[in-house]
C-alpha cells in the first residue's frame, strides 16, 4: 500500500503510517490535482487576457465580450468532479472511519483523557475491563480518578503522555476530556478527534510502521496548548509486551493510588465514569469500551 501522493510529498506531508492513511492522502492528492488544473488553466487564461487586451494592444473594447457558453461547460465539469470526489471518496471514507469500527475484542482498547496540558491514557489490562473512574477520586497522583476498590481496576494500566501500541493491530481510542476541549491529533496516522468534556468519542486506526509519532493537541486549550504533546510509540509485538510489563510493575509501585476502603454510603462500583454520560451530558457518544 504505497502512497501515490506526489503533490502531498512535494508540499511537505510526512509519510503515512496507518493502514487507512493512504486513502486520506489520496483524497488530498486528488483535490490538489483538481485545484491545480483549475488554477493553471485560469492563470494561463488570465495572463493571456491581461496581455492581449491591455489598452495599448486593444484600444477599443468590445461591448459584447465573450458570447460562447464555454464557461457553463467548465462550471458543469467542476460540479461533476466535486460530485465524484464527494460521493466516490469522501462520504464512503468517512463512513468507514466512523461506522465500521473493528470488533473490540481483537483490538487494542485505550481511553485517552485530555487535561490541561497533557494526555492521560487508561488501558484495561489483561482482564480487558476498564476499572471504574470517578470524579471525586481525582488527585494529582490519580489524575484519572481510578477507583482502586473496583476489582476491574486492579490490573489496569495508566500512562501519562506516552502510549505504546503494537504494530498491525487495530487500535480503538475513546477520547474524552476533563476540562476544556482538546483534540487528539495524530498527523502520522492521519487521524484526529476532538476531546470534548462530557462526551466520549471513539476513533480507530491501524499502525503499519514502527516508530515514534507525536500526538498534537489540535484545539486551543489555554496557555500551555502549544506544548501539549503526547507520544505514540508503535512497537514490535515484543517491545509492546515489554512496555506493558514495565507499566505493570510501575503501577504496582508508585503510580497506583493507595487502596482505600469504599467510604460508607458510596454506591457500589458501577461502570467507568465517563463511559456513562454524567447527568445532563449530551447524549452523543455511546458508552465506550
Amino acid at each position: 500500500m504505497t502512497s501515490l501522493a506526489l503533490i502531498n510529498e512535494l508540499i511537505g506531508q510526512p509519510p503515512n503510517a496507518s493502514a487507512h492513511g493512504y486513502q486520506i492522502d489520496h483524497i488530498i492528492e486528488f483535490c490538489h490535482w483538481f485545484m491545480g488544473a483549475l488554477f493553471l488553466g485560469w492563470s494561463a487564461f488570465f495572463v493571456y487576457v491581461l496581455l492581449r487586451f491591455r489598452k495599448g494592444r486593444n484600444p477599443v473594447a468590445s461591448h459584447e465580450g465573450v458570447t460562447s457558453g464555454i464557461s457553463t461547460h467548465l462550471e458543469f465539469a467542476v460540479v461533476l468532479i466535486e460530485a465524484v470526489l464527494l460521493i466516490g471518496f469522501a462520504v464512503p471514507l468517512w463512513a468507514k472511519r466512523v461506522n465500521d469500527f473493528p470488533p473490540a475484542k481483537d483490538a487494542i482498547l485505550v481511553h485517552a483523557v485530555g487535561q490541561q496540558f497533557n494526555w492521560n491514557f487508561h488501558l484495561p489490562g489483561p482482564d480487558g475491563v476498564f476499572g471504574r473512574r470517578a470524579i471525586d477520586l481525582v488527585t494529582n497522583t490519580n489524575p484519572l480518578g481510578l477507583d482502586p476498590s473496583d476489582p476491574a481496576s486492579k490490573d489496569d494500566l495508566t500512562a501519562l503522555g506516552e502510549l505504546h501500541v503494537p504494530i498491525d493491530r487495530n487500535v480503538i481510542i475513546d477520547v474524552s476530556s476533563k476540562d476544556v476541549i482538546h483534540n487528539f491529533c495524530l498527523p502520522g496516522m492521519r487521524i484526529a478527534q476532538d476531546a470534548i468534556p462530557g462526551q466520549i468519542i471513539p476513533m480507530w486506526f491501524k499502525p503499519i510502521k514502527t516508530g515514534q509519532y507525536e500526538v498534537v493537541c489540535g484545539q486551543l486549550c489555554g496557555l500551555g496548548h502549544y506544548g501539549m504533546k503526547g507520544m505514540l510509540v508503535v512497537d514490535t509485538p515484543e517491545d509492546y509486551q515489554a512496555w506493558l510489563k514495565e507499566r505493570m510493575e510501575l503501577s504496582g509501585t508508585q503510580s497506583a493510588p493507595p487502596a482505600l476502603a469504599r467510604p460508607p454510603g458510596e454506591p457500589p462500583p458501577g461502570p467507568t465514569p465517563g463511559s456513562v454520560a454524567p447527568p445532563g451530558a449530551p447524549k452523543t457518544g455511546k458508552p465506550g469500551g
Partner: protein
Amino acid sequence: MDVSSSVSTHAAHDSHPHDEHDHHELSFLRKYVFSTDHKVIGLQYLISGLIFLFFGFLLMMLMRWQLAFPGTRLPVIGTLIENVLGQGAMNNGVMTPEFYNSLGAMHGTIMIFLGIVPVAFAAFGNFVVPLQIGAPDMTFPKINMASYQAFFAGGIVMLVSFFVPGGAAKGGWTSYTPLSDIADKGPTYHVIFNGQTLWLIAFIMLITSSLLGAVNFIATIIQLRAKGMTWMRLPFFVWAQFVTAFLLLLAFPPLESAIVMQLMDRVAGTSFFLPSGLIVNGAAVSISGGGSPLLWQHLFWFLGHPEVYVLILPGMGIVAEILANNTRKPLWGYKSLVFAALVLGFLSFIVWAHHMWLTGMGTVVSAFFQTTTMIISIPSVIILSAFFISLWGGSIRFTVPMLFATAFLPMFGIGGLTGIPLAFNSADLYLHDTYYVIAHFHYIVAPGTIFAVFAGVYYWFPKATGRKMSDFWGHVHFWPSLVCMNCIFLPMFLQGMLGMHRRWYDGGQGWTLASEKVWGVSGFHWNLPISIAAWVMGVAQIPFIINFFWSIWRGEKVNDNPWEATTLEWTAPSPPPHGNFLEAPVVYRGPYEYSLPGRDKDYTMQTEPIKEGERVLHEPTMSLGH
C-alpha cells in the same frame, strides 16, 4: 450633451442645494462627529476601520516575532509593552504564552469585526450605496449614526480589555467553551473587568451596530432606489451589499443569543455551555452542569460561516465595479452574478458544521454538510469565472484600483480553491487547525478582501474628496504588498501540510514534526522568512497611509467623473453635498453601458435617456417587490 455634466457643474456647488430648513451652517460636532449624513458616517467607518485594521496588523507583527524567535527578547518594543501592560504580557521583554494567545484572539476579532466588516461593508456601503442607487441618504439617518456609535463603543471596550488584569480575551476569535467560560477565573477575577467578559460585552455592541446597519442598508436599497432604478439595473456592488446585509441581519442574532448565554455563564454562574463533572486544575468546578460545549459551537458557526461571506461579498462587489470600469466593457454575465450572490447568501446558512468535522459527527450529518459545502463553492466559481471572462475583449487600463482588483482574482482563487480539501471531512482529518487552514482563509481575506478594500479606497477617493490619490505612490504600495502577501501565506501551506498547528506559541520549535524539511527549510524555520515578509509588508503600507492623508488636502484635483464611469455616484458633485444629488436622478439603462457600439464616448451614463431608434440590448428583469 450627457446628463452628468449638465447636473453637476462646479458652479452648482455653491448654490447650497439641500433642504431649506437647515441652511444655517452645522457646527463641527454635528458635521463630523454626530453626523447623520451617510457620507460622513461612511468616512467615519472607513477611517476607524482602517485604523483598527492596521492595529490588528500590528498585533500580528508582534506575534510574528515570537513565532520566528520563540522565547527571545523583543528589542525595545518588548520593554515598552512590559512597562504598559506589565509582566503578564512581556516578561523581561519576552512574550508570555497568555499574551500570545491574547494577541491571536484579538488579531482575529479585530481584523474581522473591527476591520473588514466596518470598512468593506459599513464604510463602502454607507458611502457608495445611496449614491449608486440615486438616494438622498439612508432611510434612517439617525439609526445610521447610532450604528456607528455602537461600533465605536464596542471597539473602545475591545481595546480597553488589553489593560484589565489578565489581559484581553485569550480563547481565540472563536471563543470555544468551556475554555472561554472558565477563562480568567483566577483569584483576581473581577466579574466585569476581565478580558473575556469585556470581549462579550464589546460583541453585543458590535452586533447591535451590525444589525442597525443591516436594517438600514436593506431598507435603503428596497425603498430609495431612484426613478427607473429597477432591480436589474443595480450595480453589482449594491447587490453584494444587499446580500451581505441579509447575512448580518439573520446570522448575527443567534450568535448574540450565544454571547448572552456565555455572559450569563461567566457573570451569573449558569452552565449553558458547561457539562457536569468538569475538573479544572485538579479540582471539581462547582456548577450545576448539564450544559453543552457544542451548543456554543453550533451557534457560533451559524454566524461564523455566513460571516466569512460577509468578508468577501463586498470585496467582490468593489472588484466588479472596478473591473467593468477599467476594462471599458460590461461585466460578463451580470444576471448570473446576481443569481450566484443570492444563492451564496442562502446556502451560507446551511454549511456551518464544516468547521466542526472533528467534533464527533456521524455519517448522515457530515454527508449533508459536505454536500452543501460543495454546492456553495459553485456560486463562487461562477462569480470568479464571470470576472475572468469579463476581461476578455476589454481595453484594460491598469489604473491603481485596477491593479488591486486584478490581483484580487487569483488571490481569492487560491484561497477559495484550498477551501475544497477542507470541505471533505476525511481530508480535514489531516488538515484541521493546521496552518493550511490559516493560509486558506488569509488568502481570501488578506490579499483578497484587503486588496479589494484598497482598490475601493483608490477608486472612490475622488468622489469623497474631489481629489485623486497619487498613482506613483499607489504603485509603490501595490507591488511590494502583492509580493509580501504571497511570501507570507504561501509557505503556510507547506507548514500546514507538515502538520504544524495554529495557535502555537512556540512556532513549532518544540516539535519534531516541525523540524522536517520542506523545500530545503524546516517547517519551523519557515517562520522567519514569513515574519520578515510580514514586517516588510508593514513598511509597504507607509506609502499608502501618507498618500491617503496627503491626497485629502494636496491630491490632484479632478472632475466629477475622473474614471469615466457609468454609475450614478459619478453624476453627483465631488464631494457630494448633503442630499447628494442636485436633482433627483432618473435612470434609463443598466449599470455598465461601456463601449456601446456607434457612440463617440466609450461610456454611457445610467442617466442618459434611450435615444430614439437606439437598439436596446436585452435587459434582464426581476422583481422582488409587491
